[in-house]
């Protein structure tokens, strides 16, 4: 269970949000809404532990995440605005290495399968730098297929994706929720995800 209590975020001399409280249980999705610059990315980074909130605490099953450290990182997957792929490595190398970094070593065939599913079949051995914007995004998102984490934190996963890819992601998210996973995500596009409970968090 992920809990945020009393979260406040200050950037420069601007307070982006204050007193945000929520708790997210297994199988639940939380969508964070808000106009550009309202602090969605900042909130997600706080939930990951990349930034400290000015006030408040994020807890994972009752323990403050800042005290959990590496253990917490083992249960989350964060995919932000930046894709985290290396331009010079090939698609398949990128996927295998980023998974290894997240603690899961996957075989070549497993990786190929995931890429195939993401619609990157036949492009496994191209360096990422020649890919199109949407294809890079797909490479980053392919990691969701191989990881075994419970909590997914996704910052605009749909940016640059075409309709077929949006469909794939939607199915993926629904499956994850059905299996008892949790998702926190932001998006400016409409996406209809069927889930047990969907919480909407509106910023600013």
């Amino acid at each position, binding site marked *: 269970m992920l809990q945020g209590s009393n979260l406040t975020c200050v950037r420069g001399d601007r307070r982006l949000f204050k007193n945000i409280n929520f708790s997210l249980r297994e199988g639940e999705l939380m969508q964070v809404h808000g106009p550009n610059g309202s602090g969605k990315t900042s909130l997600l980074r706080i939930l990951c532990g*990349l930034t400290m909130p000015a006030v408040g605490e994020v807890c994972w099953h009752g323990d403050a995440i800042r005290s959990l450290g590496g253990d917490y990182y083992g249960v989350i997957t964060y995919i932000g605005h930046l894709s985290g792929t290396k331009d010079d490595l090939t698609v398949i190398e990128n996927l295998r290495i980023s998974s290894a*970094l997240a603690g899961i070593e996957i075989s070549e065939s497993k990786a190929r399968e995931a890429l195939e599913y993401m619609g990157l079949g036949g492009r496994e051995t191209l360096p990422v730098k020649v890919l199109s914007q949407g294809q890079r995004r797909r490479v980053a998102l392919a990691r969701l297929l191989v990881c075994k984490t419970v909590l997914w934190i996704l910052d605009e996963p749909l940016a640059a994706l075409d309709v077929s890819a949006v469909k794939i992601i939607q199915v993926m998210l629904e499956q994850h929720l059905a299996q008892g996973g949790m998702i926190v995500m932001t998006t400016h596009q409409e996406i209809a995800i069927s889930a047990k409970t969907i919480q909407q968090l509106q910023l600013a």
Partner: protein
Amino acid sequence: MFLWIIQRDLLLAMRRQADVLTTLFFFIIVVSLFPLSVGPEMSMLRTMAPGVVWVAALLASMLSLGRMFSSDYLDGTLEQMLLSPQSLPLLILGKALAHWLVTGVPLVLMAPILGIQYDLPTDALSVLTASLLLGTPVLSLIGAIGAALTLGLRGGGVLVSLLVLPLYIPVLIFGSGAVEASTAGLGYSAHFSLLGAFFLVSLVLAPWATASSLRISME
């Protein structure tokens, strides 16, 4: 895990094919610049040799520091590393080791040949090589701290040298000092034990310092 990081960084280096070679050639070119501008007198060159080789090694190592984290930062991989359940200092040690394998080792291998061009005697050559072998890992380790601190400050390339060079200087002094001591017929074991001490200290401390610098830079 550790191995994955090293492997990844080496892979990246190989992908840019001639990467190892270019460090090497940079080193050779810098070493060759001095005779060009100072003139070809051998006795003069011999005195300069250890200093020149060490300064070149230092620059070669420093020049490639920018690469260490900045590309990982720009494309978001670094965020992922911080979120990795693996121990961050270990990851960093892996990266520093990869950096040394790509920039340090070629220099160590090349040093004797350059020494010959500067007409150094044989035992001075071996002392030079040994001092580089012990000293260059220190450069990579200390460099990692500087690279982490200047991360995201665009144009960090020069800033990093500002931070790192003062820390490099002791290594430089004792490294080239060892060679001079040996040419002068004095003992150089004191220099070596100091270099060894630097190595151990930086091996233990640098990954931690780098890890916290990275967390600060990414805040």
